[in-house]
């Protein structure tokens, strides 16, 4: 019996000894590098819990700005991400939702002499945008400019009288996974950035662009009314939230008037010329793009317009950026002749 007890005690001592050894043992290389961030990635925010912008009594054509500085008080580099978490619209007496009308520009003004635009678009259009890598001890300053565009006389803006909106944002710094080398990867400084410790975020651990649609650039497409058959092309304006390359493709389908009717595909691919061509789209300015119809595409559209007077065109934009790809679709309907109030209106 004593012998058995001694063996059990010896086994327990062994267990404790091995467990203690495991705690003190050196971790694998990758784990060790992540531990460089252990308790060390901490975000400081000059407006934490407060408002970046508080503007009352805004008028058409007016803009309001606010600045915020984000710092990484830790030692490890992190990728700074801005995400909108909520929109609270309070419509005015005439029912306008202000989030539909305001435009937002976010600029990196860490180097005030050379501000860098990182987002431009409708305020409601910002969902999540990956900004910059923030090195340990570094900081970046961003300027938010919210503008209510003046649409001119005629009372189009008057729906927004007395309306208000609140946007909630979350700033998040996520630890950048380090390459397997023992020394941490250097964070390159952005061109023109005078300091602050930030820089362009690197790609994934193995150098490839990670394919995460939520991190891909946001593309803004505007398709004005136009005469497509007359010009043999679809013209559209495009702009990205960060520099991107876009591949456009299109398909033709029926466009029945009944909302629940099934749309039948007429031409699944090859509607536009150069569908494999990547087009560069910038951040600062809308770019006018012309998607020329192929001969086959044109005849398909014409045939359908001749027989049914309506045809649908689905334009697919595949956006590729540093962090991933995103696919956006827009559908337009071409009419031969539209009769409204007894007047014949030709158009898209």
């Amino acid at each position, binding site marked *: 019996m004593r012998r058995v007890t001694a063996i059990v005690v010896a086994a327990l001592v062994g267990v404790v000894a*091995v467990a203690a050894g495991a705690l003190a043992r050196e971790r694998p290389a990758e784990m060790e590098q992540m531990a460089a961030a252990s308790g060390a990635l*901490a975000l400081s925010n000059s407006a934490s819990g407060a408002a*970046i912008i508080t503007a009352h009594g805004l008028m058409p054509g007016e803009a309001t700005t606010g600045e915020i500085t984000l710092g990484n008080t830790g030692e490890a580099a992190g990728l700074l991400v801005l995400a909108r978490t909520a929109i609270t619209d309070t419509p005015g007496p005439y029912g306008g939702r202000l989030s539909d009308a305001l435009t937002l520009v976010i600029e990196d003004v860490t180097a005030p002499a050379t501000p860098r635009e990182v987002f431009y678009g409708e305020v409601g259009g910002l969902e999540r945008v990956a900004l910059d890598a923030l090195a340990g001890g570094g900081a970046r300053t961003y300027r938010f400019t919210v503008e209510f565009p003046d649409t001119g006389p005629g*009372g189009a803006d008057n729906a927004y009288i007395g309306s208000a909106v609140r946007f909630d944002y979350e700033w998040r710094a996520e630890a950048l996974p380090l390459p397997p080398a023992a020394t941490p990867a250097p964070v390159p400084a952005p061109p023109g950035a005078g300091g602050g410790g930030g820089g362009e975020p690197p790609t994934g651990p193995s150098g490839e662009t990670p394919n995460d649609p939520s991190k891909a650039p946001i593309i803004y497409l505007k398709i004005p009314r136009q005469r497509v058959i007359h010009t043999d092309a679809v013209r559209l304006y495009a702009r990205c939230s960060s520099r991107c390359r876009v591949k456009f493709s299109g398909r033709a389908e029926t466009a029945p008037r009944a909302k629940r009717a099934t749309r039948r595909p007429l031409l699944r691919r090859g509607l536009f010329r150069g569908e494999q061509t990547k087009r560069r789209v910038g951040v600062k300015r809308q770019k006018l793009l012309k998607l020329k119809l192929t001969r086959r595409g044109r005849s398909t559209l014409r045939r359908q317009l001749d027989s049914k007077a309506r045809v649908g065109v689905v334009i697919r934009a595949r956006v590729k950026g540093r962090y991933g790809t995103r696919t956006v679709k827009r559908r337009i309907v071409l009419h031969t002749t539209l009769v409204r109030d007894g007047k014949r209106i030709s158009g898209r």
Partner: protein
Amino acid sequence: MRRLLLVAAVSVLAIAALTMPASRANFASSSVTHANVAMDHTSRYLQLLSDAADTTTLTGYADKRNAIPLVRAATGADDALAVALGGYKNTNSTPIPRVLSLQARDPLPAGVASITVTATLLPDGASGKQPLTGATFGPLTGAGSSTSLTLAPGDKRWLNLSASMKGSAFPGNNLLYHPVVRITVRHAGYAGSFLSYDVPVSIWDGNGSGP
């Protein structure tokens, strides 16, 4: 004996597996912030008042024509002010004085010494017809009227309308028209048309006062 050794070995492996990945690293950090934006509001500059909303002793507000019992044409205040003029079937241009009163805020917003107010008539949205023929501003007492006026803080005026429902455009077949009176406020720092009230008006082309 072997069983004991086996149990001990399994225990060692389990403890080692639990302790090995126990990193308490902070791989993310976040903070929140927000933005508040509000557009300007006409009521910061000008009040529109009906008899019920007017707390002063001012009298003489217009009645809804042909209504039994008589009721005031205007109800509510500011954005919620609405005007029901009553029946004007087969009438030539008829003045409808003192439909509502308007008063400049006292004080006006900072930097605004006075405001200029104008009135524009918008036709009925459904038919495109315009039964209203004019809108003028008049003093609280005495005669005189103007199509635009400048108000200092606290100044108050009447809004007078005129209507006509004569001719083939208004056949008197019991239709209710909904024209709009747009009252626009401008000041030295702003010449646009954003600061405005759209006052909905209803006027009955039929017998009686209408709905």
